[in-house]
Structures are given as structure tokens and as C-alpha cells.
């Protein structure tokens, strides 16, 4: 069964992303939305942890939430894929289970 993990909390403030990455199986997908998109930034105190995560899971970030926060693809770690709202829906359809780490 394939799983899509959704994280909407800032990784600098909450432990949701940490927990998610701890329990995410290899080849599952992590979608970063709302304040969760900050986890995708390069050059942060968390970038190294995210770089390691990107070796085992696929990471997506919701572009509308990224743009709202003044960021774009050029600020992101290599390997993070941007999706729009349609892409969000496609991800939920493409995976058997969706887990939101609130």
C-alpha cells in the first residue's frame, strides 16, 4: 500500500515533520503544505536532514502556499517537486492511504 504523508506545520516550530519522516516508509510521498513548505528551503538548519530524507521518500511542496510565503523553486532543495491544487488532488488519488500529520 502506498502512502501520502501531508505536513502543514513549520518544521522549525513543531515536530510533525520529524515524526512523519521517522515513520515514512521508503518510496512513500511527503507533501508539504501551508507552513510545512518551509521544510523544503535550502540553506536552513534542517536542510541536511531533508536532503537525507529526499534519498528515500519523494517530497512535494504546494506552490500556492510557497508563493504566498514569498518563496519559489529557486529557494528549494534539489529534488523537491512543486505541485498546484490539481497536483494535490492527483497525489491523493495516486496513493492508497493519506495521512495528515496535524
Amino acid at each position, binding site marked *: 500500500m502506498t502512502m501520502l504523508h501531508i505536513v502543514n506545520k513549520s518544521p522549525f516550530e513543531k515536530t510533525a515533520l520529524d515524526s512523519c519522516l521517522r515513520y515514512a516508509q521508503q518510496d512513500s510521498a511527503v507533501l508539504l503544505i501551508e507552513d510545512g513548505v518551509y521544510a523544503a528551503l535550502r540553506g536552513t538548519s534542517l536542510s541536511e536532514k531533508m536532503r537525507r530524507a529526499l534519498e528515500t521518500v519523494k517530497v512535494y511542496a504546494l506552490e*500556492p502556499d510557497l508563493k504566498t510565503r514569498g518563496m519559489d523553486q529557486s529557494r528549494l532543495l534539489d529534488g523537491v517537486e512543486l505541485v498546484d491544487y490539481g497536483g494535490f488532488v492527483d497525489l491523493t488519488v495516486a496513493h492508497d492511504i493519506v495521512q495528515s500529520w496535524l
Partner: protein
Amino acid sequence: MTDETMLEEDGHSGGVVKKFLYVNRRAPYGSIYALESLEVVLIGAAFEQDVSLLFLDDGVFQLKKGQDTAMTDMKNFSPTYRALEMYDVEKLYADRESIEQRGLTEDDLIVPVEVLSRDEIKDLMAQQDVVLSF
């Protein structure tokens, strides 16, 4: 007390002036804190108080340039930070460590701020009459 003596003591005709520090620790948009803080800051300024703003932890994300809310249809309140000067809110501070840990530089910020070290922030907080945290 007559108006004249109040003027001498406070330097303002309206009454006591206190030093207010607004501590902003939340990212914008994910919660209502950042927007509500701005509202309260403007109220403080309207009452001619001695207002300072400090951006700490995820609060530094509030100042990120280039916020574009067209796709989420949210209210982009970031231009308000540039307008604070018109309300005589000119003391803006940000924590150096918070900026660096988030991969930001001073060039990323929508308004000029005084970037402070942890020790300088301790002193800034100790100098206040009132500290409000958002």
C-alpha cells in the same frame, strides 16, 4: 495634575508613554497571530506609545520579500510592514540566529531592520515596560 505638568513629565499631551515591545514568533498565514500583531501594533502607535517590534523564530518569515497571495486568495498584509514608518513605528529588530537558521539574509527582508544578537535581545527585552507576545 494639570496638562502643563503632564507635558513636562511625559513629553506628550495625552498621558503616560510606556515602552511596548511586540514579540513576533509565528510565520505569517499559517495562523492569525502575525496579522493580529500588526493590528495591535497600530493601536499602540495610535495612542502615541513608544513601540518596538521584534521578529524572532518563525516570526522572521513575516518579513520575507515577494509574498504573493494570488494563488491562495489570502490577504497579503506584508506591505503593512513598509507602512509602519508612517505611524512612527520605526524600531524594528530581528534575531540574527533566527534569520540564519531559516536560510534567509537581510536582503530577503521587505523592510530594513536592526539585526540583533541574542545578548542584545536580552537587553532590549529588559528595557521595556510592557512585552506582548504573538
